[in-house]
């Protein structure tokens, strides 16, 4: 049942730090976050960890486990050999605050840059009508728990810090796609997605999709369709001609460019 797990946990702050070795008793069915909590309660009372729900629903406990970006609460110890040392480090793309806690304010800044939803008026009876099949596209993207693992993994910012100001990242491409596919939204944000949000910098290596704990098909269902929609708008000679002679793409009928 129980056994002694060897762990290496990064301890430090913005001025630097190092991996610290621990041995902690763990038991059947536990996840990495359980092991860290036991460390906290028995050996390292000030070990900084960000977590909330411990059920994979809030997206707070993102970190890197043996180098892989994952949620601490959804990574089961049974995925590892009992003799294996588990190494836990903070997300690499964000500045560290302390130990496993990073400064993810980049993501909240990007959220502010996104223009919000703009629906038309309700139906005469005060309600709105949308078909289930039409809301499902957006619903997939709204499963996002904002763990920011996709943001952390995306090499556009992971390896190139200087891209951050011009790049919103996969999480917010999801949001652009969600708004673009909303059956009742009235804005056309394609220009913004391409320009201000830096959609064009993504070269669809699908790293974001691979680490998504919600299994959202970020690349296939959000980014690629958005890229196609942007391309339609910009380069398609038929669309250009259609616009000229007043025949417009029906998908964007009634939408105002913002």
């Amino acid at each position, binding site marked *: 049942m129980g056994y002694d797990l060897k762990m290496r946990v990064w301890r430090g702050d913005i*001025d630097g730090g190092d991996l610290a070795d621990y041995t902690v008793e763990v038991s059947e069915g536990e996840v990495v976050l359980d092991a860290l909590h036991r460390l906290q*309660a028995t050996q390292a009372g000030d070990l900084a960890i960000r977590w*909330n729900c411990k059920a*994979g629903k809030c997206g707070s406990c993102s970190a890197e486990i043996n180098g892989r970006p994952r949620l601490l609460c959804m990574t089961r110890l049974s995925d590892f050999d009992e003799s294996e040392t588990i190494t836990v480090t903070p997300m690499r793309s964000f500045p560290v605050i302390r130990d496993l*806690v990073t400064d993810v*304010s980049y993501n909240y800044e990007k959220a502010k840059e996104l223009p919000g939803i703009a629906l038309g008026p309700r139906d005469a009876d005060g309600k709105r009508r949308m078909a289930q099949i039409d809301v499902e596209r957006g619903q997939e993207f*709204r499963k996002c728990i904002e763990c920011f693992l996709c943001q952390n993994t995306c090499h556009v910012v992971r390896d190139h810090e200087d891209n951050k100001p011009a790049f919103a990242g996969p999480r917010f491409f999801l949001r652009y796609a969600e708004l673009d596919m909303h059956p009742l939204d009235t804005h056309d944000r394609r220009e913004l997605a391409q320009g201000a949000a830096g959609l064009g910098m993504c070269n669809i290596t699908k790293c974001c999709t691979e680490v998504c704990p919600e299994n959202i098909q970020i690349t296939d269902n959000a980014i690629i369709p958005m890229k196609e929609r942007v391309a339609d708008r910009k380069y398609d000679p038929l669309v250009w001609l259609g616009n000229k002679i007043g025949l417009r793409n029906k998908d964007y009928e009634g939408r105002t460019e913002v």
Partner: protein
Amino acid sequence: MSDNTGSHPAGAHPTTRHPMTGNEMSAAAAGGMERHTYDVVVVGAGGAGLRAAIAAQDAGARTALVCKSLLGKAHTVMAEGGIAAAMGNRWPEDNWEVHFRDTMRGGKMLNNWRMAQLHAQEAPERVQELEDWGALFDRTEDGLISQRDVGGHKYARLAHVGDRTGLEMIRTLQQRAVHLGIDVFMECTITDLLKDDGVISGAFGYWRESGRFITFEAPSVILATGGIGKSFKVTSNSWEYTGDGHALAMRSGANLINMEFVQFHPTGMVWPPSVKGLLVTESVRGDGGILKNSEGKRFMFDYIPEFFKSETADTEAEADRWYDDKKNNRRPPELLPRDEVARAINSEIKAGRGTPHGGIYLDIASRRSPEFIRKRLPSMYHQFKELADVDITAEPMEIGPTCHYVMGGVEVDADTQESAVTGLYAVGECSGGMHGSNRLGGNSLGDLLVFGKRAGEAATAYATSLGEARPQVDEADVKAAQVSALAPFEVEGGENPYTIQSDLQQSMNDLVGIIRTASELEESLSRIEVLKKRAETMVVEGHRQYNPGWHLALDLRNMLLVSEAIATAALARQESRGGHTRDDFPQADDAVWGRKNLVVSTDDSGQGVVLREQPLPEMPEDLKKYFAPAAAESPAASKEGK
């Protein structure tokens, strides 16, 4: 303990580091203290706090939203089933009167009738509003917002998004708040409320990230801090649920009511131990799931109380027909209110008919197709698959009761949510009255929205009415709050807060749990006294920057005070009703206890609690008619014949 913000070289952090939160983290800030002036400060950024902040901002207040976690992580994300609102999208017969009656009956008539009424009347518009702001609810065939069944609601009434409605709600409100430009102070904990001559003048707290102190000067403070579940060992609640709002309100002179009523959700996971207590949504039962004991018996038919007999099916055949034909059949007993189901499960386990891991079986696999289950309950499918290696489309789940919700909270005015302290408001789980002795599924999310909006507006109106004559923050109080917050660093040789918390959780679980008796409640109170003594000398290692040990030490004070309030009220109420079950007083006593609330406040020392009884607010005659024996069916019964 010296101020430690100096561990960050000033040059390394441009002051724009946290433009959204305003957290400058600069070592140069004098005394490590930051100050802000607002009209309304909202403490807590779950559904209630976000809705209150949006309402305040919309009403023209300068509004601050302060939360212990990152924005969008509050416990509302865990809400699964849906938002109860009588929109009539599935059942045109549904209306606020039916919802009102269901809510009152679910709370065993101990609810504040006015809150239950306002909630039932206003919830539909609050849901529509979420849709205006971008929420994508599941749809009916006609394209309207879909509504689903859970226990205690006569009609399918919960607006939902699969089984992740809470996430949809918090994200929608979060995006709205960001869009409105509300100032958000993330990972910032309020430890004291400040007063001037009896009225609120502000709030004091610290940045978790830096340990630096922060003072808000504001005439209106809205508490939206959620519940108390972290005082119990087996709970569906996250670490944040330490009763902060309850304790802050008490310490500042407000009252708590109904604290004896703690909801144990019937279905929490029981295995593996790591996830014990984690919620399994009631929608599993709403969508057809049934409860079975180790003998394979569908036992809920043995536990139908007299109070709900006329509206509950007494054969499996009728219960199974109900899912498709609600007009001619009565509800399955699995969909009785939560208190009834939790007690039944508890009895079966105690009688030795539990599962290998000490729960009972919740089975939807044998009743619905795998496609249906994955579509309707995607989070549950994911949760069991990932955390327990159980495929819920192929095998039953093992579940048992888990501490889920506190009906009790800050006593407030029903229309404005203002507490007994001028300028102090409370909304959502940390307020009390709305749910009486037991909350129905789906009524929490509605509560957050309806009363969040009301509180935001009332708090703004009050702040505006003051003009220039605002209450002032007393520097001596700020100094005292600082000393108090740093006390755990001053102690040498004490114990660590984790051990004290763990002992409290065990004690509350064992002695103040789902079934209670006088002797155990008395024992729990004496243990709390011992824990309070131990907490006086608890010690924290390390320094102030992002130090969970320190944060827990401060939260633990709140947990202890609130636990004492719960145990004290539970000992006093000598009957069983809703979320309060006394082994020594197994019956509800309507003549005596059905007429009063228990009110808890702090004693003269501020360290303990005192209790008094208070008559229930009198329901007006025009609402009483829904509960007259002749109207035993429902207000909409007459329309049903169509």
